[in-house]
C-alpha cells in the first residue's frame, strides 16, 4: 500500500463520512419519530390508522432501500415532486427505518404484562398516563438493543446512496478506484472509515444499554 495515496485520499473520505453521518442522523431521528407514533397507533389499536401503519410496515420492510430511493429520486420528479438528493436520502432512510422502529417499539410495548396496565387503571390512571408513565419507559428500556441494531443497520444502508449521486463512503471509494485504480488503498480506507463511524455507535450504544436497563428486576 502506498502511504502517500492513503494520506491524499483521507480528506475525501472525511467529507464522505460527514455527509453519511449528516444524512444518517437526520434519517434516524425521522425514523424514531415515525417509530414512536406508529407503535403508539398499533398499541392503542386506532381504527383505520392501524391498517395504514400495517400497510406502511409491510411496504417498506419488504422492499429494498435501493428500490425506495430509486422511486423517490427518479420516479417522483416525473409527476412533479422534486427533492434534492440529500433530502431524498433522509426521506428514504427515515421511511425504511421507521418501519423497523415501529416493530421494535411494538415488541417492547407488547412485552409489558397486561397486568401492569390493569393495575394502573385500577389506581385511577388514565389511558395516556398509563402509556406515558408506566408502559413506555419500560418498553423503551427493553427495546434499546433492538433500536441500536436498527441504528447500525441504517448507517450501513447508506452504502446504496451512490445511485442517487450522494458521495457517501462507498461511492467515494468506488469513484476513486474508477479514476485512479488504487484499489487496495481505497478499500482499506473504506473499511477503516466504516469502523470509525460504527465502532463509537456500538460502544456508546453499549453504555446506553446498561444505563437504561432499569425495566427488568434484580439485574
Amino acid at each position: 500500500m502506498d502511504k502517500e495515496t492513503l494520506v491524499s485520499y483521507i480528506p475525501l473520505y472525511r467529507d464522505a463520512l460527514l455527509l453519511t453521518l449528516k444524512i444518517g442522523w437526520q434519517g434516524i431521528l425521522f425514523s424514531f419519530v415515525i417509530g414512536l407514533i406508529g407503535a403508539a397507533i398499533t398499541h392503542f389499536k386506532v381504527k383505520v390508522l392501524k391498517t395504514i401503519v400495517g400497510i406502511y410496515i409491510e411496504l417498506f420492510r419488504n422492499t429494498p432501500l435501493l428500490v425506495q430511493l430509486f422511486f423517490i429520486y427518479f420516479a417522483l420528479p416525473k409527476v412533479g415532486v422534486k427533492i434534492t438528493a440529500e433530502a431524498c436520502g433522509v426521506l428514504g432512510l427515515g421511511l425504511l427505518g421507521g418501519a423497523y422502529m415501529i416493530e421494535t417499539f411494538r415488541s417492547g410495548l407488547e412485552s409489558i404484562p397486561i397486568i401492569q396496565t390493569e393495575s394502573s387503571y385500577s389506581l385511577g390512571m388514565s389511558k395516556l398516563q398509563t402509556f406515558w408513565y408506566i408502559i413506555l419507559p419500560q418498553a423503551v428500556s427493553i427495546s434499546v438493543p433492538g433500536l441500536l441494531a436498527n441504528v447500525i443497520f441504517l448507517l450501513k444502508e447508506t452504502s446504496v446512496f451512490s445511485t442517487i449521486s450522494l458521495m457517501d463512503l462507498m461511492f467515494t471509494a468506488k469513484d476513486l478506484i474508477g479514476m485512479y485504480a488504487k484499489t487496495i488503498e481505497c478499500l482499506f480506507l473504506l473499511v477503516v472509515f466504516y469502523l470509525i463511524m460504527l465502532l463509537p455507535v456500538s460502544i456508546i450504544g453499549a453504555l446506553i444499554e446498561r444505563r437504561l436497563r432499569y425495566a427488568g428486576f434484580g439485574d
Partner: protein
Amino acid sequence: MRKNIINKITGLTLILALAVVGLAGCGSTDKAAEQGSGEATSAESSSQGFRTLDEIKKSGTINIGVFSDKSPFGYVDENGEYAGYDVYLAERLGKDLGVEINYVSTEAANRIEYLQTGKVDIILANFTVTEERAQEVDFALPYMNVALGVVSPKDEVVKSLDDIGEDDQVIVISGTTAETYLTKNYPDIKLQKYDAYAEAKSAFENGNGVAWANDNTEVIAFAIENEGYEVGIPSLGDQDTIAPAVTKGNETLLNWINDELKTLGKEQFFHADYEKTLLDTYGADYEETLVVEQQ
C-alpha cells in the same frame, strides 16, 4: 459494571487494531504476488490472474465485459440479446476464436477491476485509452475515435464550461474520462456523479444538472434521440481513441487481438459495424470521424 465497559472498549480497540494489521498484511501479500507473477513465465498461469489465449480456447468460452445500458455501443436489445458497436466486434472475436461468448455486464467504474481480478478476459465497453488506465491494463489497437462532449437543455444551452455557474451541477458518470478531465482541468465545477448510464440519463432528464458531460458519441446520440436537448460543446479536451483492453501482461491474448484487428481492417470491418449499429443514430456524417480501421 464500569470494569466491564472498559474491558469491552479495550476488546474492540484490539479487534480494530487486528483488522488494520490484517488488512495491511493483505496489501503486502498482494504486492508480493504481483511481483511474483511478473517474474513467472506462462508455466504458472493460474497465479497470474488472467487466462492466456490457449487457456481460453481450451475452456471453450471467453468472458467479455460490455456495457448493458449504453446504446448504441453496448446494450441489451428488446429480445434480451446484447447488441451495439462494441458487441458486434465481440461477436466477431468470439467467432474467429471459435469459442462461446459469455457477456459480463460492466459499469464504467469497474472496468479495470474486472480485468485485474480476472472476471473478464477482454473489456469491450467503449473503453477510452488514457495514460492512467494504460498503467493498469493493456490496450490493444484502437477501433474508434472519441472526444468529450457536453449536452444541455435547448432553452439554456451550455456553450462553454466557463458559463457554468457556481451552484450549477454538471452530471458525469463515475469512472469515465469526462469525470477525470473535469476533475483535473475544472476543479471548481460541481460534479454530480452517478455510477451507471441509466441513472445519469434519468437524472439529466429530470433536470438535476445544467449539463451532462460524457463521451461526445454518447451525448450526440442522446441529443438525437431525445427532443429538447442540444450538444453545446461537441468536442472537449483531447481527441482520444477507444480500444479493447486485456489484463496487464496477457500478451498472448493481446497479440491475437491486434492481429485480428489488422485482418479486420483489411475487410473494412468497422465500417460495416458502423453501418449496422450506429448509422440509425448518427447518420452517415460521423462515419469517417468515428471509425478507425487498422491497416
